[in-house]
């Protein structure tokens, strides 16, 4: 067997399955209720765990008394910090989080301190109330800018200089000189001071954004048990079986052969199902009690233990020429990271710039991104990893720039939009990009320029936003492709079906290689015993990474198939191709043989099955931490532009999103219907996060950790079906798989500012805080009316 890595450049016209709106391979399971999620499994005699949590935002733990809880009938055991490993975990930037606070300190309200295990979840919950913890309360800090002040009296992680970087590396830097700074990322391109001197107009603004949550429908749930040979098995509603396996091995010092991680279909992720803290807790309980233990979050706990997106304060300064050129941009962005940032927000010092750094050609650029520790709940990755935050500031700023120059916001964007061969803020040369086409398409579909009429108390306006995104080349992918004798092709991958449609994408890619329909492809995933190594469905990487490895594996399998068939048919392997479960001779298609015959023939001499193996990785060149410059930081740059038409009620401040248009550059789309689905879903999630949703914190307590007052849009707050229009405008990227580029996380990014710009267009009120709640719009209108 060979290891291969391929890049494909077939023209779309030659493709039969890829590029088409092929039905999802998991849809039948899901519409019949047969699809299994982790919580659908239930074993006789399993135990149930509940967590003892800190009521303090910042405190030292003096003593934990579990005697009353242990004596409570039905309680089987309690896991304490002393049972937990010292090791701190984290991905990417900072390893700052212990499974249980073994360092004796809690840093947010809700931080787990102990795990109570009992025969029923009711008993476990009642026993949690019997655990007596003595605390020494410490002063707490909740505001990012206060926390970042050099003379802040509170140091939340006094030992942070000893923390290591996450397993996936990470481009951000530690900041030893600022006590509560978790991480920093710098961009230095050109000479920003010189740029500002050359500028005719300077525009400066401050934007802020609140924390938001994932709101995935399926909560965290995990089961753990020990097998007879001492293997730890964890089955959980989370992504990244191999990443978790690595983490669990590191945490508990277990050899690779003694940890097995499983998952099923995942009921939504949006970046929140990657963090390992939960598995560590249930694994500890299973190892201590030697029983099958289930740990399931309540909806409230799901917010705490998740990796909600941090709030941010963003300063942005642009230098403009009278002709509309942007000559310099300077940004300072501070994220409010909470008690721990190991869930991924440590990386946000970089990622907050990810949606804006390749949109426009700006020769002089200086950025400083910081993540600050506070005593709010921890933060981490959420769809776009804070790129939506940076874009909220920068694309709002673009409209402020345009208005300062008296230009139309579309004209101003087109004047500066990145062109083929321009360099982005990271210094990478941009190729095979279509941002201009994306923004033009969004503008055309929203009928930019045609002033929309108001209606009574409702005023209407339109706004635009543009974003780029980077698919993160974090780790390689392996895929196995089996040929089954009935002509079925089996694809085994080690990443996740979180709802994004990865199983359909790999089925399409394999089907394309074998020229069969996707219903002849079987996709196997979700168990480290049976699936090959992969990283996780993260950073919009799967189509690119797992996809490339799938094609490589399929080609490897085909090669083996042709060797067998060639011998049987008396034809050289190069002469052969395959279609509909048969191998045929390219020059004489009537000469063909079904797969089943090949196996009958060959099994006699030892070939029972055909197993192709594929592999893909991306080699990033070193980058300079002082300037952030890197020649190939991201393998490709997709783009997305939104046009939004909104109505604002001038009496109540209520905002309704009436129409949304999208121009998307994902190169050659692999499955256009799933691209539409991702974008339509992203639009409605963004409507929620920009108008309705907000993690409300009061002295570190999350006061709306439920779906009643954490307000995700229902269909009633979403535009009518015909009013969401999506068109693909990209040209195939020859470095991409079948010319495609990734999409998943980009779908939130440019919406926030596009909506803010529409509100401005309707009312003249510039919103600088997201979410633009009806109340904040109401007071904005009041202020505006008083000022004019």
């Amino acid at each position: 067997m060979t290891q291969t890595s391929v890049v494909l450049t077939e023209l779309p016209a030659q493709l039969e399955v890829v590029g088409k709106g092929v039905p999802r391979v998991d849809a039948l399971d899901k519409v019949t209720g047969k699809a299994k999620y982790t919580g659908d499994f239930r074993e006789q005699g399993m135990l149930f765990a509940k967590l003892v949590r800190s009521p303090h935002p910042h405190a030292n733990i003096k003593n934990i008394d579990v005697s009353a809880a242990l004596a409570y009938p039905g309680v089987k055991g309690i896991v304490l910090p002393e049972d937990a490993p010292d090791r701190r975990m984290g991905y990417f930037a900072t390893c700052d989080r212990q499974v249980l606070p073994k360092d004796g300190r809690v840093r947010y309200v809700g931080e787990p301190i102990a795990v109570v295990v009992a025969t029923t979840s009711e008993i476990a919950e009642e026993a949690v109330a019997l655990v007596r913890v003595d605390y020494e309360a410490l002063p707490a800090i909740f505001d990012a800018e206060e926390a970042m002040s050099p003379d802040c009296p509170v140091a939340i992680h006094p030992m942070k200089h000893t923390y290591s970087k996450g397993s996936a590396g990470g481009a951000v830097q530690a900041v030893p000189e600022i006590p509560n700074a978790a991480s920093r990322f710098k961009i230095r391109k050109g000479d920003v001071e010189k740029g500002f001197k050359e500028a005719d107009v300077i525009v400066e603004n401050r934007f802020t954004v609140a924390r938001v949550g994932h709101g995935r429908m399926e909560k965290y749930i995990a089961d753990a048990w020990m097998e007879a040979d001492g293997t730890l098995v964890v089955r959980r509603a989370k992504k990244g079986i191999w990443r978790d396996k690595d983490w669990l091995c590191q945490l508990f010092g277990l050899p690779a052969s003694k940890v097995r991680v499983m998952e099923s279909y995942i009921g939504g992720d949006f970046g929140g199902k990657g963090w390992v803290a939960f598995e560590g807790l249930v694994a500890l309980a299973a190892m201590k009690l030697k029983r099958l233990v289930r740990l399931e979050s309540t909806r409230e706990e799901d917010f705490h233990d998740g990796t909600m997106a941090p709030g941010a304060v963003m300063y942005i300064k642009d230098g403009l020429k009278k002709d509309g050129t942007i000559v310099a941009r300077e940004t300072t962005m501070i994220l409010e990271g909470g008690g721990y940032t190991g869930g991924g927000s440590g990386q946000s010092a970089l990622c907050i710039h990810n949606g804006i750094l390749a949109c426009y050609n700006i020769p002089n650029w200086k950025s400083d991104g910081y993540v600050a520790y506070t005593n709010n709940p921890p933060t981490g990755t959420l769809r776009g990893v804070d790129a939506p935050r940076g874009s909220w500031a920068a694309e709002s700023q673009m409209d402020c720039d345009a208005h300062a120059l008296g230009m139309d916001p579309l004209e101003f964007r087109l004047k500066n939009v990145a062109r083929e061969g321009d360099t982005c803020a990271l210094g990478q040369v941009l190729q095979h990009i279509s941002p201009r086409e994306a923004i033009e398409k969004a503008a055309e579909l929203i009928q930019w320029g045609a002033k929309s009429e108001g209606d009574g108390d409702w005023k209407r306006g339109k706004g635009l936003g543009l974003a780029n995104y980077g698919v993160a080349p974090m780790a390689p992918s392996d895929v196995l492709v089996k040929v089954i004798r009935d002509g079925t092709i089996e694809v085994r991958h080690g990443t996740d079906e979180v709802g994004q449609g990865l199983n359909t994408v790999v089925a399409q890619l394999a089907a394309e290689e074998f020229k069969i329909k996707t219903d002849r492809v079987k996709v196997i995933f979700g168990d480290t015993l049976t699936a090959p190594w992969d990283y996780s469905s993260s950073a919009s990487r799967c189509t690119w990474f797992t996809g490339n490895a799938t094609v490589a594996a399929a080609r490897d399998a085909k090669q083996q198939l042709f060797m067998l068939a060639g011998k049987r048919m008396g034809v050289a392997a190069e002469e052969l191709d395959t279609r509909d479960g048969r191998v045929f001779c390219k020059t004489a298609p009537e000469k063909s043989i079904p797969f089943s015959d090949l196996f009958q023939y060959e099994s006699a001499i030892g070939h029972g099955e055909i197993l192709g193996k594929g592999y893909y990785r991306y080699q990033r060149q070193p980058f300079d931490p002082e300037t952030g410059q890197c020649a190939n930081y991201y393998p490709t740059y997709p783009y997305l532009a939104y046009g939004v038409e909104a109505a604002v009620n001038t009496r109540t401040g209520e905002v309704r999103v009436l129409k949304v248009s999208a121009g998307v550059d994902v190169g050659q789309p692999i499955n256009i219907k799933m691209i539409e689905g991702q974008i339509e879903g992203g639009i409605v999630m963004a409507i929620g996060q920009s108008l309705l949703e907000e993690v409300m914190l009061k002295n570190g307590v999350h006061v709306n950790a439920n779906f009643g007052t954490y307000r995700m849009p229902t269909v009633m707050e979403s535009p009518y079906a015909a009013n969401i229009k999506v068109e693909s405008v990209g040209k195939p990227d020859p470095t991409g798989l079948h010319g495609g580029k990734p999409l998943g996380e980009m779908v939130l990014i440019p919406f926030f500012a596009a909506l803010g710009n529409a509100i401005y267009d309707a009312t003249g009120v510039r919103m600088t805080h997201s979410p633009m709640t009806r109340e904040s719009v109401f007071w904005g209108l009041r202020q505006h009316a008083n000022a004019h």
Partner: protein
Amino acid sequence: MKQLLQLKVNGEEYEVFAEPWKTLVEVLREELGITAAKESCNTGNCGACTVLLDGKAVKGCLVLASQARGHDVMTLEGLSNGDGLHPIQQAFIDHFAVQCGFCTSGMILSAKALLDENKDPTEDDVRKAIAGNLCRCTGYKKIVEAILVAAEAMKQEA
């Protein structure tokens, strides 16, 4: 503590022991292994646990299991008896109305309750019928489209 409970689910009679405080969705999932209805918010705000009681959509997390006695309970598993798919299921597949699938059971049952009462729904009717069912993946567009297509298909069938 557990008490005997009689339930009729998808046309079948069940006798099951459950604690009195258990909700309908808990008993379906934990005691009967009927798992298509999902538990997500547990406060009646998301609709993932929607089941039909005598043909009407209710939230399984806000109905005590013992209150369902004497009523016909239908879950997604009971929608297509026989080989074929119900037109709503088929439309959900054909029109990409499914992504992660966690809301799908509730969505399809809310749609069924609507289409059984209203053969010719407008888009507004569909929106109001699924306003109690949150979906975080699709943005609802393809779900609404699928339900309208299913309505047409059911009219043709009738």
